[in-house]
């Protein structure tokens, strides 16, 4: 058979099908069967009939929303200043903001905990605050990255035009800058929101297991060898991911996102 360039994709496709697609199908299978392997909605009922499950999901959503908002509120001005030639001309400063992501995250997270405990913010009694701090610490660079790349592309003359036409600072911010950087805001939000929901190491370490996020919960059931119920929760997770992808797709058209190099 003659060599064709498209054949090069065969190992890649086999790998994706075998280790990405088929495993997800396994999740679907276990989510909608019972222990005996028969098709059933047992897990659906079990999940929605127990208030604890719903609460864990809701609490995780609240943490994810707050984490996204705080990261955006901090990250937006940072990215703006970094990308604005008037304030900053050195690319190394941007790299420094991204740099924490290259230091092992278990070390960073436990360092944050030990530091907080040292200065008297106890992870035992102020678990929700310390968890929030840990989440923001971990995800802030992921917000700065896409926001910075979007900000670099914007036309700063439009901001000046807005001032020249008599708009004040807040009008320019809300009517010009934010709409112009919306794709960056949305990709930043998706980089924080879903991962927060499914993260578990951060909340485990920073709350001494007082705050249980959805990721921890899945982990817990899976470790108890309850695959069916664990899979159903993973299925919920997949549905939420799908929704967030569809939302970001809709508004992200034309935005390429950021990369390190």
């Amino acid at each position: 058979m003659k060599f064709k360039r498209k054949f090069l994709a065969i190992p890649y496709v086999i790998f994706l099908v075998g280790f990405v697609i088929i495993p997800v199908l396994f999740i679907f299978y276990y989510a909608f069967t019972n222990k005996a392997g028969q098709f059933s909605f047992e897990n659906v009922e079990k999940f929605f009939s127990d208030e604890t499950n719903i609460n864990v999901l809701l609490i995780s959503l609240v943490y994810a929303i707050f984490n996204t908002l705080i990261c955006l509120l901090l990250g937006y001005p940072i990215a703006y200043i970094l990308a604005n030639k008037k304030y900053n001309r050195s690319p190394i400063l941007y790299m420094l903001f991204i740099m924490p992501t290259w230091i092992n995250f278990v070390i960073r997270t436990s360092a944050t905990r030990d530091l907080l405990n040292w200065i008297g913010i106890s992870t035992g009694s102020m678990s929700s605050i310390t968890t929030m701090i840990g989440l923001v610490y971990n995800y802030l660079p992921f917000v700065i990255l896409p926001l910075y790349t979007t900000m670099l592309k914007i036309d700063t003359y439009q901001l000046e035009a807005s001032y020249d036409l008599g708009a004040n600072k807040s009008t320019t911010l809300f009517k010009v800058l934010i709409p112009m950087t919306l794709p960056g805001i949305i990709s930043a939000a998706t980089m924080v929101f879903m991962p927060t929901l499914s993260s578990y190491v951060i909340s485990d370490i920073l709350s001494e297991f007082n705050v249980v996020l959805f990721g921890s919960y899945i982990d817990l059931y899976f470790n108890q060898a309850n695959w069916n119920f664990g899979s159903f929760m993973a299925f919920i997770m997949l549905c939420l991911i799908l929704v967030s992808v569809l939302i970001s797709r809709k508004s992200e058209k034309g935005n390429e996102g950021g990369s390190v190099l």
Partner: protein
Amino acid sequence: MKKENIISKIFAKIFLYTMLLLMFLPVLTLIFFSFTETEILGEWDGFSFGLYSDLFNNESLMKAIFNTLLIAFVSAIVSTILGTLGAIGVFYSRKKAKKSIETMTQLPVVNAEIVMALSLAIVFSTLNLSYSFITLLIGHVVLTVAFVYLNVKPKLVQLDPNTYEAALDLGSSSFGALCKVIIPEISSGIISGFIISITLSLDDFVITQYLKEPSFETISTYIQKIVVKHPIPPEVRALTSLIFVVVMIGVILVTIYNNSLANKNNGGKK
């Protein structure tokens, strides 16, 4: 107007450096206390390099560091080969195949790590495969391969399609043309895919935890096991300093590389 400008500049600078300091505070604290031999963070017991020799004498931690680097390099190499060939192959495939493969590629990018880890663990258990370096490798490649693909693809789009045909016309075999014409042109995408793979793999905890064999520890799993119950072990403070220095060198190199790239581009335009 001028005065207002200066004030806003000063505010911007103060804000930026305060945020930077806050972000680095936990790590900097660890580094500061890596030069004293106290058990608990926050106590100073005289300057010493003791923790650094403790670090190199801690066999299980050294083994974990070695394992972390091993899995990062092996998985990055596998991902880079698989992802690069995948990107080239898909790029020259028919539209329909292209579209479905691109959708598949998105899945590991957006998927939650715990879902990927759990789904692979279920598959391996169903197949009665015991966890080994291979299962861990598969997990890390799943985590990283799509990022190689996504870094290589834009370079293929920029490629001049005629160069490959020209190489064939000049008597090159298709394989030769691939190695000598296409690969060099997309090398920057391959390199950044490789680097992203390494950083993702080095930092990984969830997939590693699920798919490793029980005795195999990486930095993440080794430290996590300790810190869920205890403060950070003192030697890890020394390790953090070393990681910080390595990463700092990496940051400087990347900045220099980006600068030279930018200069080259500007030079080309002029």
